[in-house]
Structures are given as C-alpha cells and as structure tokens.
C-alpha cells in the first residue's frame, strides 16, 4: 500500500450495542426531554409574541 493510500485508509469500527441505562441515566434523559420540551414551547411562544430586544 502506498503512503498516500495508507494515510487515507480508515478502519471501520463495529457498531456498539445500545447502552443499558441505569436509574440515574434514565432520570437524566427524562429530565432532558422535559427541558427540551419546555424550552421549545417557550421559544415558540416568545417568537410568536415578539422576541425581547
């Protein structure tokens, strides 16, 4: 293999299995969903009623 071809070659890593989530991780993800929903709802509402300057 030439040096240029060697430098371009990249190994393909096998996919990892889904992570088994513990109680803390599940709670964090639930909190994240709620946070994103809240922020999105507020952003949409604020945008519709005029963003603060």
């Amino acid at each position, binding site marked *: 293999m030439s040096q240029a071809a060697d430098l371009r070659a*990249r190994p393909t890593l096998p996919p990892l*299995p889904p*992570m088994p989530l513990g109680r803390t991780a599940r709670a964090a*993800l639930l909190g994240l969903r709620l946070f994103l929903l*809240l922020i999105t709802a*507020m952003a949409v509402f*604020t945008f519709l009623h005029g963003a603060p300057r």
Partner: protein
Amino acid sequence: MTQSLGGVIEGSFAGQVDRRRGFAGRNRRRLAAMIGLLVGPGVLAMLGENDGPSMLSYATSGASYGVGFFLPFILVTFAAAYVVQEMAMRLAAVTGRGYGELVFQRFGRFWGWTSAADLVVTNLVTLVTEVIAIRLGMGFFGVPAWGAVVCAGVLVAAASWGGRYARWERLAAGLALFNLVFVGVAVFARPSPGAVVHAMATWGPLPKAGAAAFLMIVVSNIGATVTPWMLFFQQSASVDKGMTVRDLPQGRRNTAAGAVLAAIAGCAAFLAAAPLFAHHVDMSRYLDGAGFAQALRPIIGAPGASLFALGLIEAGAVAMLTISASSAYAVGEVVKGVGRSFDASLTEAPLFHATNIGMALLAGLIVLIPGAPLLAISINANLLATLLMPAALVFLLIMSNDRAIMGEHANGRVRNVLGVSIAVLVAVAGAAYAVVGFLGAIGFKAF
C-alpha cells in the same frame, strides 16, 4: 462486557492510520512533531469558539459594565470549557468514535438524530454570525459584503481541498493563533492594572443592571465559551487525528493550552472594549456599521481599532472552518455508510464535504438576503447555544461514565462533580433567561 467492548475497540483502533506525527511527537521529541501534537483539536475547539459572536459578547460585557464582575466570570467559563472538552477528547481517544456516532449507537436513532439536528440548527445560526463578523471586520477596511461572503466560502472550500486532515488542521491552527491580536487591542486600550486586580480579587464591582439584561449577558458569555459544536468537533477531530489512549496526556495539554490561549484572547477583547464604558459611549449608534472597531477608533486610535477589525475577521474565519467541520462530522456520523474524514477525498466522502462547504455557503447566502434579521440572529446565537448545551452535556456525562466503553478511563468522582455542576449551571442560566423572555412576552414585567 467491559473487556469485550474494550477489546473490540482497541483491536480495531490498532489499525488507525495517520499516527506518524503522534508517534514522532511522543518518541523522537522533535520540536515540530511536539508542536504538531500540541496544536490539535483542543486548541482549535477553544480558539474556534472565540468566534465572532463570542468576541462581540466579551466586548459587549466590557463596554456595558466596565472592568468588574465579568472579567473573572469569563475565566471561570473557560475552566468549565476545559472540563467538558477534556471529557470529549478522552471519549475519542478511548473509543475511537465521534460524539454523534456514540450517541447514535448507545442511545438509539431518536437521540442520535436529535443531537445531530440540534447541532446543525445551532451551527447554521452561528455560521451566519461568523459571516456577519467577517463582513463587519472587512467592512471596516471598505470591503463590500459580497466580497466578505466570497472570502468565507473560498476559505472553507480551500481548507478541505487535498483530502488530508493534517493539512486542514495546520491551516486552521495557523489562522487561530491570530486570535491573540485582541491582546494588542487591549494594550492600546490601556486598562488600569488596579481595576483588573480588584475585579479578579473581588468579582466586583457588580453590574448595575436589571435582571433580564444581566442574565442575557451571563447566558451570552456562557454560550460564548461552552457550546455543543465544540464537543462534536473535538471528539470527532481527535478521532480524525488518530488519537488513542496513549495520547491522553498530550490531549489534556492540548486542551489546556487551548483554554489558556482562548481565555487570554477573550479577556483581552473584554478589556479592549472597557474604555467604551468609561467614556459612556452609546453602542446603539454603531450597530449597523463596523461596530466596536468604529466606536473604539476615537478612544484607542486607528491602529487599535484596525487590529480589532482584523481580530473579528480572524475569529469569524477560524470558526467558519471548525463549525462547518463539526456539522460535517455530525452528519457523517449519523448517516450510515458514508465517509466522515478530512482524510477522505471529495469522491470518497461526498456528503461530508458537501455538508462542510454547503453550510458555509448557506450561511453566506443568508447574510446577503436583503432585510434578513442579522442583528437578531447575532444577538441570539450564543443564547441558542446555551439553551441547547444541557442536552449535549447530559450525553457527554453519561458516556464518560460508561465503563463498558471507557473502562478505567471513565470519569472519577471529581470530574463528575465538576461536570454535573457545569451542566446544572448552564441549564439553570439558560432556563432562567428563557423564563424571563417568556414572562416579558406575555407582558409580565417582573424585572
């Protein structure tokens, strides 16, 4: 489980290429190789984040409130940036996978796509502000808007030309070092050493402002230093560079060096604009023109103002490179079976390069739209980054604690306390600003 996953990763990663520089840097101790190792994704992520809106945010803090609370606050945000960027670098070196790829594989399609979409939207808004920064900087020297947009597009396309990560990194790093021109501007501004020492020692004087205005500057400064694209970028670029577990010490030095350099430049931009506060300059008069550079010219002189404009061009240019790259990495990592490396040519990784160059061009076109709300976009870019950062931090923390893939390199207690504290601080600051904005929108003026 730990052993089998770790073994798979280590075994596959053993074939990682483009490791020659890393090997030379560690073993031969040649100066060029050592610098090559030191100036890497960590420095680029940190100096890339000292982008147009960030430098304007630091300058706005200085111009609005003078030397005081925000000077040590900026330093703390860079310390926070080091903590989270080190985790991203460690994840890359240990797992050999980018951030988007790991989220996609470990948490499923929903979170994988949500993270990538979150990043691409934030990046597009930020890229628009980078083009605006380049336009403002070049406008100071009389270059028309379309000229600035063409320069920005050509830069991103030219940097990825040639199909080599190392080449792209050297170009970006070379440009990034010019971030330190803001130190020159600060010298021209002649800040009072006494005021600087007092601010660092006492975190005062505290800003005299309403809660909404104060929160906006706090959130904006957090968003100027800790953002989702930095995590995506540093993790993916560290993989692209070919870092492994053996490179962890260098990766930490690289990230710390980036944080120190970026903090120096950020504080310099803050100090450079502080005379505007002392001279009671009304910045609203300068919003449509070359902004701070024009406002500073009568106070610190033409050379200092020109340096500020040059600094804005540099800040925008480096961020164009790194933020476009982080978008390309994210898309490449969540779309199955496509190339995702600067080491791949246009034909080998068309989607990667199309995203990299396409995002920059799209941002440029938005800036050229007559009547586009550029001011609103500029103001809200850092705020948007802060609002969306908690999502990125939650995944970063969970993955850094995932012993199945991290093994002995998983987070310890101290790193977890720091990481969780940062995530909570960012979430609370972002949510508080969102609530204040929401209350204002429904006509409730509590502050």
